[in-house]
């Protein structure tokens, strides 16, 4: 029936065109204005909107030769026009798909009751009343039917709605049947069940119900939203509908005239009129969602395209990373520098501390040396008093005899006093002795080899080159009982004496050996040796042959040896070699499991 109506109008139009043709022959100078229609609208659009529009224009501007025709969507649109003054009526959304046409939008159709033209048309999802589908999301993988793949108000808008609940809307349905506006149409297919869901324009359903084509109760609408101003049901957002646009080649006068005419036209039968304030924001958003038209480039997911599209955020991220890296590098370098500084400071600090410790040790040693000298001085002063007195008394007696002034009583007194003074002297000596008495020797097991090694480290011999010093330790531990430190003092003393005795080419040897039940630590040197006279004086305090010596060294060594139950032995080397030999003899600890208290 639709086709019949259409055919009727086409014929009628041809008649008009023919009539017009005649008048065109008369007036060849008339401006040719061509208006093309890209009909993707509801079937009534042509009759109710387009045709009246053309007629209205014609009657208004008889000076124009207005030609109106349908456009073939499969062919390039511009080529279908021959006049410069070309205008087109198409869906507002589709115009966005053809930015190359540089169309100038002049007016947009506004539906009845709507405030603006931007929300005119949308789509509805219909299912059979008895189908199990209640939600749009349940339709995943279902079969669908729509009028045309390029149908903006139908298919594309529906895709946009689906895009809001699922990615890749084009793959949402398992199968889509396009009816291309022919029989069976979408509602038929849904009714007979060959598809699960159908997509119609808004108001298409109401129109069909009004004309009796379908029963309202046959169908149910999914994802229903508030109805349009005209009362039609809808499932999607609303978008602008028809648009009247001019090609850039149209003359300004013509454009103005037509625009004025359209805007001032009386509303159509369905109550729609044309206004200028269209907003394409929603359309653009839809295009972007579906990645179509001007946003088709979004489909390009090749790396170059992605890079170009996201170049600003990518650049910022890269810059951020670079900044962080540089920062980390700088922090690292600062850290290195600081660590180095701290290490240097620590080193200096250590060195300073070491220096302090060394001077402290020096001070201690000086103090001790000073104390020894002081004690010696005090002792010598004290002891002189009684000795002086003894001398005086005895001298006095001698003098008396010499001067023949004998006096027995006085003599006796003097002798008594002299004796008393000698006791006093002995007392002083005792007192001094007790003040400097050594602590009893610690009795532990000691290896003489180890003692010798330590002594070498602590004596002045440590500075000798290896060819000057020879060590012959025993190949097994030589165990004695005693205090390792005190024994070390003895050997250090021997070694230092050897160093002092040697001249330019010192040869010092230290040897540890056993003989019978005794252990021996021996130090030999190649110095000048010691005269027989001095040999007998060795070990006696205050008889030092050294300029600053008190002669205590060997005396202390002697007392240590004695405290350990051993003794010292001194002799010159055998005939033929000059030099001296000093020996420390100690009793050997032959029972290794001896308790320390059982030392000999």
């Amino acid at each position, binding site marked *: 029936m639709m086709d019949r109506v259409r055919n009727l109008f086409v014929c009628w139009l041809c008649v008009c065109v023919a009539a017009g043709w005649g008048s065109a022959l008369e007036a060849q100078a008339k401006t040719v204005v061509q208006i093309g229609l890209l009909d993707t609208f509801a079937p009534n659009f042509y009759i109710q909107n387009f045709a009246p529009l053309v007629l209205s224009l014609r009657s208004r501007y008889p000076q124009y030769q207005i030609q109106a025709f349908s456009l073939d969507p499969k062919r390039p649109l511009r080529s279908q026009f021959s006049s410069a003054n070309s205008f087109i009526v198409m869906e507002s959304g589709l115009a966005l798909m053809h930015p190359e046409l540089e169309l100038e939008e002049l007016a947009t159709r506004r539906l009845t009751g709507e405030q603006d033209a931007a929300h005119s048309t949308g789509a509805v999802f219909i299912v059979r009343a008895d189908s199990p589908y209640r939600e749009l999301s349940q339709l995943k993988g279902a079969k669908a039917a729509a009028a045309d793949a390029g149908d903006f108000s139908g298919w594309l808008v529906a895709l946009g709605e689906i895009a809001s609940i699922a990615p890749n809307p084009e793959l949402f349905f398992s199968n889509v049947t396009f009816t291309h506006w022919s029989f069976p149409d979408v509602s038929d297919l849904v009714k007979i069940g060959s598809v699960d869901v159908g997509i119609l324009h808004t108001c298409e359903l109401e129109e069909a119900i009004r004309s009796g084509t379908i029963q309202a109760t046959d169908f149910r609408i999914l994802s229903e939203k508030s109805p349009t101003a005209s009362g039609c049901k809808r499932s999607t957002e609303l978008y602008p509908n028809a648009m009247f646009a001019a090609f850039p080649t149209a003359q300004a006068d013509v454009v103005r005239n037509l625009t004025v005419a359209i805007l001032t036209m009386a509303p159509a039968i369905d109550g729609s009129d044309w206004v200028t304030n269209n907003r394409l924001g929603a359309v653009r958003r839809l295009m972007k969602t579906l990645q179509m038209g001007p946003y088709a480039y979004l489909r390009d997911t090749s790396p170059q395209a992605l890079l170009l599209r996201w170049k600003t955020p990518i650049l910022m991220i890269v810059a951020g990373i670079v900044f962080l890296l540089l920062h980390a590098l700088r922090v690292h370098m600062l850290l290195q520098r600081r660590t180095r500084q701290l290490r240097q400071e620590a080193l200096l600090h250590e060195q300073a501390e070491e220096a302090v410790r060394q001077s402290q040790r020096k001070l201690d040693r000086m103090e001790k040396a000073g104390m020894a000298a002081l004690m010696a001085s005090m002792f010598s002063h004290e002891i002189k008093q009684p000795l002086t007195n003894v001398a005086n008394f005895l*001298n006095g007696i001698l003098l008396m005899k010499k001067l023949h002034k004998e006096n027995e009583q006085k003599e006796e007194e003097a002798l008594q006093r002299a004796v008393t003074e000698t006791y006093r002297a002995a007392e002083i000596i005792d007192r001094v002795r007790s003040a400097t008495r050594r602590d009893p020797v610690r009795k532990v097991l000691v290896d003489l080899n180890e003692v010798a090694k330590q002594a070498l480290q602590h004596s002045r011999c440590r500075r000798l080159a290896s060819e000057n010093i020879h060590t012959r330790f025993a190949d097994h531990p030589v165990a004695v009982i005693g205090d390792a430190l005190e024994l070390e003092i003895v050997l250090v003393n021997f070694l230092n004496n050897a160093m002092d005795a040697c001249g330019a080419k010192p040869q010092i040897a230290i040897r540890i050996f056993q003989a019978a039940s005794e252990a021996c630590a021996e130090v030999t040197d190649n110095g000048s040796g010691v005269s027989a006279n001095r040999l007998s004086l060795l070990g006696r305090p205050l008889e030092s042959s050294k300029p600053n010596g008190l002669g205590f060294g060997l005396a202390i060594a002697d007392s240590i040896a004695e405290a350990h139950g051993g003794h010292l032995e001194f002799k010159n080397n055998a005939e033929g070699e000059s030099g001296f030999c000093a020996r420390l003899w100690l009793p050997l600890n032959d029972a290794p499991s001896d308790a320390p208290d059982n030392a000999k």
Partner: protein
Amino acid sequence: MNASSFLIRVVDDDCSVYDSLRFILEVGGWRTCWYATARDFLEKDDWRIPGALLLDVRMPGMTGVELQHEMQRRQIDLPIVFLSAHADVELAVTAVQNGADDFLIKPPHAEKLLASIAHACERLQNLRALKQEQEEMLRLWNKLNDGEKEVMGLVAKDFGNKEIANLLELKEDAVRSRRAIAFAKLDISNALQLSDFLHRKDQLNDQIAALKKARTS
């Protein structure tokens, strides 16, 4: 020289040292007394009594050397013989340069000690005798007034009365009277005696100075 007329002061903090020294000194015939500290000596001693000091170097409080300085300050002329337990060469040399008579090391040889004491006392005796003589001469001389001293000075130079009168712009009579008075005051009668007197006065200064410097060998 009679030893018993002298007093030997022993200054030492150790009493037993005094006892033993006293023994020897008394054998040598000397009188002794003991002071435990230098201050005791300064406070209690009558230094007009001729004698000498046997002085220890190391004492608590004022040391021997300090006492020596103090005595010089107070012009106590008693000779000092130091007796020290230490053979400190520097100390000894300094002490003697500062006026000590001797520096002995304990224990001293008995004869050496007695000899040092004797020498010191003899020196003191001579010194004091000279000083006394000098004092007496000065007393006499200071009886003269300035004018008389002037005339005497010229008379000693063998000037005649007339010449003196000319030189001093006096009348010869005045000169003669001054001369007479001066002679009377000085208890002399002729110019020769005057010359001796003045000569002796000068000589005494030198002798005293020399004696002050004289030490034991």
